[in-house]
């Protein structure tokens, strides 16, 4: 699956995007966040502020309990501030 990061999440992780296989024990967005937090100190720093992170699955805003499949495009970012 494709993982995308934006704004300060991108800066802390140190990557704009990465590709990985959905781990067998990850069922939803919240589970993926816990999994990603273990990948590097940068990931850990970003996902330490999990409550301030929003997610989109396949380009739609999603709640933490949104289920995931391996082909999904998942993005993590702070609350939006456009306009």
């Amino acid at each position: 699956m494709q993982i995308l990061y934006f704004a300060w999440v991108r800066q802390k992780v140190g990557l704009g995007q990465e590709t990985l296989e959905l781990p067998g024990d990850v069922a939803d967005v919240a589970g993926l966040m816990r999994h990603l937090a273990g990948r590097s100190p940068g990931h850990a720093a970003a996902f330490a502020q999990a409550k301030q992170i929003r997610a989109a699955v396949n380009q739609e805003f999603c709640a933490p309990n949104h289920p995931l499949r391996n082909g999904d495009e998942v993005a993590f970012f702070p609350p939006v501030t456009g306009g």
Partner: protein
Amino acid sequence: MARVLVQEACFDLAAEQARLGEGRVDVGGIAAFTGLCRADDGIAALVLEHYPGMTERALEKIAAEAESRWPLTGCTVIHRVGRILPGEPIVLVLAASRHRSAALEACAFLIDWLKTGAPFWKREEFADGGERWVEARASDDAAAARWAG
């Protein structure tokens, strides 16, 4: 069908407004809102990041929602990305209708909604080299919530 653009370049308000009236005599009012970059707290520039693909989809969905709520003859949403200097425009929303109330309400709806419903993020750059991500404001959530339901 709404006109939705995400671009680095500046936009031309007069040309965009003219498109909505061109060749037709059934438009009674066009409401426009332009959001501009302020120089608060010594801001030297704003840098707008977005989620290519999702952004356009989100704006098209917001515009379609406006067109379903009000009898519009047209609407336009243009949002800039990249580096924007104080005094420069960031976003333009236009709504045209036979009647002024529909145009005015749809315009307010579009700008309120895109502030909370489209994936853009603003980073402030300061004259001293510092930078800061703009935080989402509860007042923007409240403004968008007015239109819920």
